[in-house]
């Protein structure tokens, strides 16, 4: 089952450690799928749908299927870029700062996707 970014990062931001790591790095992420109106902005202040309240550090353009494969741990982030299924806009050097956040994202994604649909 796929989990949307709003649900995923909403759950992650409930974890103080994850939120602190985003804040310490000054990282904000903007996920933009091809479908209009489905963009999600994530920062240590919370998750918001629609236009970002301030310019994000990194903007991710990818479909839900690609996001599902990445957060499921089946598709390495950089492989998604190389395969041109993911475009990242923003300082490329900052992408590396996501590396140690990915295990938490993937673990939460696995947990949420395993939950029975309510």
């Amino acid at each position, binding site marked *: 089952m796929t989990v949307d970014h709003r649900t995923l990062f909403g759950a992650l931001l409930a974890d103080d450690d994850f939120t602190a790591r985003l804040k310490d790095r000054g990282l904000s992420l903007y996920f933009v799928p091809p479908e209009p109106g489905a963009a999600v902005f994530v920062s240590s202040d919370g998750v918001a749908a629609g236009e970002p309240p301030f310019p994000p550090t990194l903007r991710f353009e990818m479909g839900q299927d690609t996001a599902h494969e990445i957060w499921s741990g089946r598709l*390495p982030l*950089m*492989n998604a*870029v190389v*395969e041109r299924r993911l475009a990242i806009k923003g300082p490329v*050097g900052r992408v590396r700062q996501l*590396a140690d956040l990915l295990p938490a994202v993937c673990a939460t994604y696995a947990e949420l996707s395993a939950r029975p649909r309510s």
Partner: protein
Amino acid sequence: MKGMTAMTAAVSTGTVTNAPTLSDTAALSAAAMPSLFTLPPEVERLRDEVREFARTVVRPRVLANDLAPHDDFDWEIVRKGHELGLLRMTLPEEFGGRGVGVLGVAVALEELAAVCASTALVFGASLLGQSSVLASGDPALQARFVPGFLGAEPVLACNAITEEVAGCDLLIPENSPHAQEVTTARREGDGYVLNGVKRFITNGAVAEWCTVFANLEGHPGADGLTTFVVPLDSEGVTRGPVADKMGYRACLGTTLVFEDVHVPAANVVHGEGNGWNFLTMQSNQARTTVAAISTGVARGAFEIARQWCGERVQAGVPLYRHQFSARKLAEMSVKIDAARLLYLQAAHQADNMLPAPTYGPAAAKLFADRIAIEVAEEAMSMLGARGYCREYDVEKFVRESFGARIYEGTPEVLALAVTGALYGHRA
């Protein structure tokens, strides 16, 4: 002959001054000229350090290295460059690197190439080889291959694409379905067995490891192209003869032979069949930095001509006061600044977009390679007989200006990349 003595002294001691450039924000600020590009402080610092390194370390060895046998290699320059951090420019600061992106590398390579394009290419080719490991995002691969660049002794990497019958096909989008390396990788056990011959591999004679592009057996065409990291002390690797080149004599282009070379599966970058996609991304970085090298070649030749035209007196005034010479100098200067602006823009895109668009790097290299030849040739003719003599360096810039027109994409290949972008074949 009045200006001759000063010119000779300037060239031999490396005191030829650099004119302000459009990326030289401090100089432009002093001249009250606004600049579209303000380099980040860490890149400005790197540029200034590399400029000094080029002046004090590279410059005194240029002529001797150029005249040396074609298979000589100056490890001393590499060692001193390593001390400065030139082999770990793109490694993140948390790894002990300098943490600059394509912009920083390009600006540094222009500084080196303005004195010696060969030296710029030694460092540039190593950084290109490293790029596969850095871009992999694979911590295990990075843990095995990055620490070598952080030790006391310098370690070089290289990048192996070109073969006797394969090269341009791999860089032309329209040809990609047919593009194929003759070097093959056969799955065996928990890894692969590589067989094939790579040609003209810069640093191949001296590198510790190599990024190798090979086709999976039974998977011809771009879809089968796969990227491997191969230590060059692996059993079955032979370093072939060093090419005896017209220019770029201080960096070694070598044949690499792979005969039943076992490579563990962990050394595959981005997975099977992603080689062509990675190659096109890597080309954006390479083309941008080679555009910077060509810009440096043009600048190096121009600086000699500029100094000469300021010293040489004809009909009672310096050459630059003669309309004919002034027109030439102005055209040369503007061409160099335009080339720099194009590569700065391409580098900015590469540092802020993954994957970066192909247009910018291809356009930057197409232009810079051309003007390097034009400016170097013009500079040589302005110096007259002196320009034809080795001690004045201009003829070396002429020889090296032709090199970049061949490696990392010929004008024909670059034109296809540019028009491909114009017609929407590639974003």
